[in-house]
């Protein structure tokens, strides 16, 4: 309900630039939801997200021009899900840092493959996609895309929410908590780990395909390790194993650089410090959310969605204590 009201408010009040930023945030949220299924719920840390986005985008490039938008997105979902299935296999053996390294390998393989493919096929500047048509509707404005993307995010949220609250979600959580005991309880660990990889990368692939169609441009340089890490930052900041947290985290990590850029432009315009700030904006952006990640890991591992619970328990503690100390403590 709240989401619908917010979405409509944005649609009517915001400038076209704001809607562009909102669209990027929504695309990020779809991918972050997928990643959270894998990392937050199943406990499998992956930095393969940029690679999955790339696979989704390149599949969209290959399929959309010939078979249309819907089939392009579907093909991207299938292709990334298949890639996720393959990437999931090392997770049956590897844990923790070793698993991270194996997903890192995917990043390098995909980056290399797409770079070669792109240069060999003569599209050095990348691929350009045509305008998107959804049946009779032409998605020719940021606003039109916004409506579509809100619907997609709503569907992705519903699916993720349904999954984590039923049999597969409980199996994933059991694997995260203790894989051997999960197996004794009756969870087919192999099957559910691979399932987490397949579904998670499917979400990321859909986001990649939609992003390609929306921005109308795909090139390998965009799919960096930095990007992969940004998605991990989203779910840590928003909240691991939280559906709402995935969306909030995606919004923050996406919007923050725009806010910083705006602030830098308006505060430092003309000043000597301004040019320093502007030259180093990418670095400042990256370190801002890196700092946020550190802060959350140290002080609130549950992420932003853990904060209300913290405030409530602090308030409870304050009420339980003597009035004097409660006043001193306040609500943290």
């Amino acid at each position, binding site marked *: 309900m709240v989401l619908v009201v917010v979405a409509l408010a944005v649609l009517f009040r915001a400038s076209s630039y704001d809607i562009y930023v909102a669209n990027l945030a929504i695309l990020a949220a779809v991918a972050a939801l997928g990643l959270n299924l894998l990392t937050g719920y199943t406990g499998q840390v992956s930095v393969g997200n940029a690679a999955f986005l790339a696979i989704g985008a390149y599949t969209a490039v290959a399929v959309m021009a010939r078979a249309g938008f819907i089939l392009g997105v579907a093909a991207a979902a299938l292709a990334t899900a298949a890639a996720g299935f393959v990437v999931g296999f090392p997770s049956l053996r590897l844990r923790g840092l070793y698993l991270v390294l194996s997903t890192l390998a995917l990043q390098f393989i995909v980056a290399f493959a797409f770079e070669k493919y792109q240069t060999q096929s003569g599209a050095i500047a990348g691929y350009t996609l045509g305008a998107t048509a959804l049946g009779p509707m032409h998605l020719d404005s940021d606003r039109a895309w916004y409506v579509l993307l809100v619907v997609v995010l709503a569907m992705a949220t*519903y*699916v993720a*929410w*349904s*999954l984590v*609250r*039923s*049999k*597969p*979600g*409980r*199996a994933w*959580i*059991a694997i995260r*908590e*203790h894989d*051997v*005991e999960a*197996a*004794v*309880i*009756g*969870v*087919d*660990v192999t099957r559910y780990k691979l*399932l987490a990889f397949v*579904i998670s990368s499917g979400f990321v692939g859909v986001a990649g395909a939609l992003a390609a169609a929306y921005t109308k441009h795909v090139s390998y340089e965009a799919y960096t390790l930095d990007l992969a890490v940004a998605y991990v930052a989203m779910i840590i900041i928003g909240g691991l194993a939280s559906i709402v947290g995935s969306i909030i985290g995606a919004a923050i990590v996406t919007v923050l650089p725009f806010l910083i850029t705006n602030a830098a432009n308006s505060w430092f315009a003309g000043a000597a410090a301004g040019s320093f700030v502007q030259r180093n904006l990418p670095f400042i952006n990256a370190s801002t959310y890196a700092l946020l990640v550190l802060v959350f890991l140290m002080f609130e591992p549950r992420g932003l969605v853990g904060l209300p619970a913290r405030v409530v328990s602090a308030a409870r503690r304050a009420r339980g204590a003597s009035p004097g100390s409660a006043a001193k403590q306040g609500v943290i």
Partner: protein
Amino acid sequence: MSSASGLAVAVAHLELQFGGMAVLRDVSFAVARGERYGIVGPNGAGKTSLLNCISRTYRQTGGSVSALGECVDRWRPHEVARLGVARTFQNMAAFRDVSVLDFVMLGRHTRIRSSTFVCALGIPFLTGDEARQRRAAHGALDLVGLRNVAKTKIGELPYGLAKLADLARALAMEPRLLLLDEPAAGLSSDERGHVGRMLLRIRDEYEATQVVIEHDMALVNLLCQRILVLNAGQKIAEGPPQEVLGEPRVVAAFLGGRAAASEAMPERGRGGS
């Protein structure tokens, strides 16, 4: 094996080694369906390892294991669970972040038929299937008296209640064979009494075969029709508890075990899953 089909558990000449160290040596025993069977022995005798061979988290180096009439030597743990074998854990160390109700719902995992696709569309919530499973989980919680902490995280429960939640999770599976690893260990005497009454109730209300590891001999006497005594990985006695516990070599094994252990209570930090 047709001869084993009437048995809940059939273990034949079981051998288990870790890096040359023999943990189980030529252990054989059989448990009839519906029987309540105890496994006792000093710390480190190999009791948990024996259950691990039945639930397939350990692979024996020799001999064979049958459960509920099926030879499970080549099975994987979840397949044994699906057959109808439930197991509680000696140390409730994991699942601290999971609510009691969700943990017990995990016990329904093998009972829920909905496919992942159906779950992804949220259909179990619409058809009432999820609600039905939740009622079954609540039933198991009622049985152990934990309904009022259903929303509490396992990690926030006192140790004794966490072990009861584990028991509820096992019961929620509606098992045909229930393996309990020291259900009363590490509990206060109050909690011990509660668990004892619980187990007697399960004995009376469930027809499931029970195999119980326990150090509390009073409880063993009350619960088990027959017991197996393990010492240093070997079977040293088997029979009704009243008879077996008085045998000189059983007494000697326990005295030796107790002298070797630093405390009379079984250690909690030890033993795998």
